[in-house]
């Protein structure tokens, strides 16, 4: 029990194992590829008596999240998992969960959206849900999935935060790839994550009305308070990550730097593509090219100040999105990074590279091509295109 074990787990199993150790009271979920392994494992844990939780096999993701809302409002530690269409079906309830300030934790195994039907990885699902008031954490590998699933409960339930958290990992690339994961002992998790305490649960002794009508005379203040809470949560998230690092010998941050010393251009990545990009950076560095990498872990709330700090002094940044926001400037991450930097006096050129759509591999060569383009932009000090789609057959695209 006490010793830390290294277990062979894929990303989904890592999430399920972490959730088990977090001792949720209620799990409500619906199967969807590539998340299904999570709910299968959790069902096993419950059926084998290893996890004392109510498991609701909901008849849809909409109902799964609705049940989580009911359960969380009662004061239960509540968990769900989904992907793709499932998250899209939940969309309406996502806003309700965050506005109710319910600390629900949801794993998302990122997957492309229909149509055409595609079960493979991209981030159209969670990026499309970026304005729903949930905290969004993106993970690179199974170890991070494990560590941040545990931290997500702590973040969500912190009374300074009280917001639901999406803890995301790329479908198949992470969800179905088995790695060695250093797990914490149950008692270590217990000490890091105390039982949930509630503020205003549904309680007959102290009846509260949750989910009232908010007329124009009150609605803006309620939304403003939600915005303030979400922005302020960045500080608490940093504190919790630091505590986790110190307690368990990890080294996480909300933006992670790789080979940034002396870098003139940088790749800004999110999720599992970061690993491949790091290999590309190593190759380029070996050739003496001044390139580094920044991995964004926290997309909501967007750590605007940290981004400005991390990107200042660079000549060009390539933002790797794993989705397209149709008809604009590539992906949401590109647009938001550009917006964050706009008011800086000395700012790098920022170009978007939507890549790896619908499970198309992003390879080292792609990142090398992107970097070469960034070096050209840096040299000429001119940005000619807002974005180029990567790994795609088509005019103007960087080919597969």
């Amino acid at each position, binding site marked *: 029990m006490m010793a830390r074990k290294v277990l062979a787990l894929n990303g989904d199993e890592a999430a399920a194992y972490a959730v088990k150790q977090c001792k949720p009271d209620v799990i409500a979920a619906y199967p969807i590829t590539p998340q299904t392994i999570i709910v299968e494992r959790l069902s096993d844990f419950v059926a084998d008596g290893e996890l004392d939780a109510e498991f609701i096999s909901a008849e849809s993701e909409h109902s799964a999240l609705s049940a989580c809302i009911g359960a969380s*409002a009662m004061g239960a530690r509540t968990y769900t998992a989904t992907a793709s269409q499932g998250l899209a079906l939940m969309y309406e309830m996502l806003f309700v969960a965050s506005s109710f300030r319910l600390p629900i934790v949801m794993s998302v195994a990122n997957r492309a959206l229909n149509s055409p039907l595609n079960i493979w990885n991209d981030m159209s699902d969670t990026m499309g849900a970026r304005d729903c008031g949930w905290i969004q954490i993106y993970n690179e590998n199974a170890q991070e999935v494990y560590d941040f699933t545990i931290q997500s409960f702590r973040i969500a339930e912190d009374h300074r935060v009280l917001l639901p958290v999406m803890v995301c990992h790329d479908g198949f690339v992470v969800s179905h790839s088995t790695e060695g994961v250093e797990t914490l002992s149950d008692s270590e998790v217990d000490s890091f994550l105390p039982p949930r305490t509630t503020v205003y649960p549904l309680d007959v002794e102290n009846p509260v009305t949750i989910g009232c009508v908010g007329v124009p005379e009150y609605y803006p203040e309620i939304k403003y308070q939600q915005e303030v809470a979400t922005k302020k949560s960045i500080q608490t998230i940093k504190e919790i990550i630091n505590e986790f690092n110190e307690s368990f010998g990890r080294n996480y941050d909300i933006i992670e730097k790789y080979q940034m010393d002396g870098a003139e251009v940088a790749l800004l990545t999110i999720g599992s593509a970061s690993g491949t990009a790091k290999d590309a950076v190593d190759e380029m560095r070996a050739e003496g090219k001044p390139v580094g990498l920044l991995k964004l872990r926290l997309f909501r709330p967007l750590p605007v100040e940290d981004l400005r700090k991390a990107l200042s002094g660079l000549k060009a940044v390539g933002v790797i999105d794993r989705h397209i926001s149709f008809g604009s400037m590539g992906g949401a991450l590109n647009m938001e990074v550009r917006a964050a930097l706009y008011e800086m006096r000395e700012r790098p050129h920022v170009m978007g590279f939507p890549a790896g759509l619908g499970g198309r591999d992003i390879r080292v060569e792609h990142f090398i091509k992107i970097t070469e383009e960034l070096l050209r932009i840096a040299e000429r000090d001119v940005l000619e295109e807002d974005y180029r789609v990567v790994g795609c057959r088509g005019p103007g695209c960087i080919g597969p």
Partner: protein
Amino acid sequence: MALKSLPLHEYLSSGHRLCAGCGEGVTIRQILKSFDEPPIICNATSCLEVSTTPFPYTSWRTPWIHPAFECTGAVAAGVEAAQKALIRKGRKKKWDVVLALAGDGGTYDIGLQSLSGALERGHKFVYVCYTNDAYMNTGIQRSGATPRAAWTTTSPAGKVIPGKTEWQKDLMKIVVAHDIPYAATVSPSYPMDLQRKMKKAIQADGPSFILALTPCPRGWRTPPYLTIELGRLAVQTCMFPLYEVENGQYKITMKPKRKLPVEYYLRPQGRFRHLFTPKTRHDIINAIQAYVDKKWQEIQKLEQLTQQ
């Protein structure tokens, strides 16, 4: 049990903003009178929800939650599951009855899936559907509960099409098909029948379902003082028979001494006005009568068939 012996508590306080003569207000008050202790209420988006909770006011003296329109069954399931877990783990002391409240739109139509899922999974809650036969909250649009020929703003009595052309969905059959321990229809016009059924619903070992017909003066185009009378006429014409299904066994709880023609129910209501003016549409009225007779026969047969 007598009317005078009902508890004095008012879990739904006065001063709410439901219309004068609203059947929902009367019905929910009666429903809540059947509880000895306050239930935890999960409410769907509806007239009842908007009229009782305009922030910063609330009419509810019970814990009450309204997340959205179509998910009341699922929300109640979550509340129930949380209670089970919290009591088992010693973090909650006593079981509180979970009461789901939803209108006909939130039950017959958009909420049918979440209700069905929750019934199939066997969560222990009482689900009350208060039907006023249309989407009254958005201004009288047809729903699966709207009766044949009724005028609504989306089934207008036009020059060619005389109101809704389809029959009302038989929700009770759908609910009963889930083999839940208890299901019943109630009317605020028969308060003691309602009390008896609610007591059974609360005590049922598993999900229970109550369908309440709640006349709507705005949507039915009737004066507020006719609400209770119309509830009575719905039962006496067998447009809305009062019955219960207890562990599969049907029992008609209110057999009209003299079954009245449907016209008695239709004529006072403005939503059926086009059946009587400018000329009487005997064809439609007769079709409704035949349909009601058939359904009444059917339910009597079911009562015989399932009797032990």
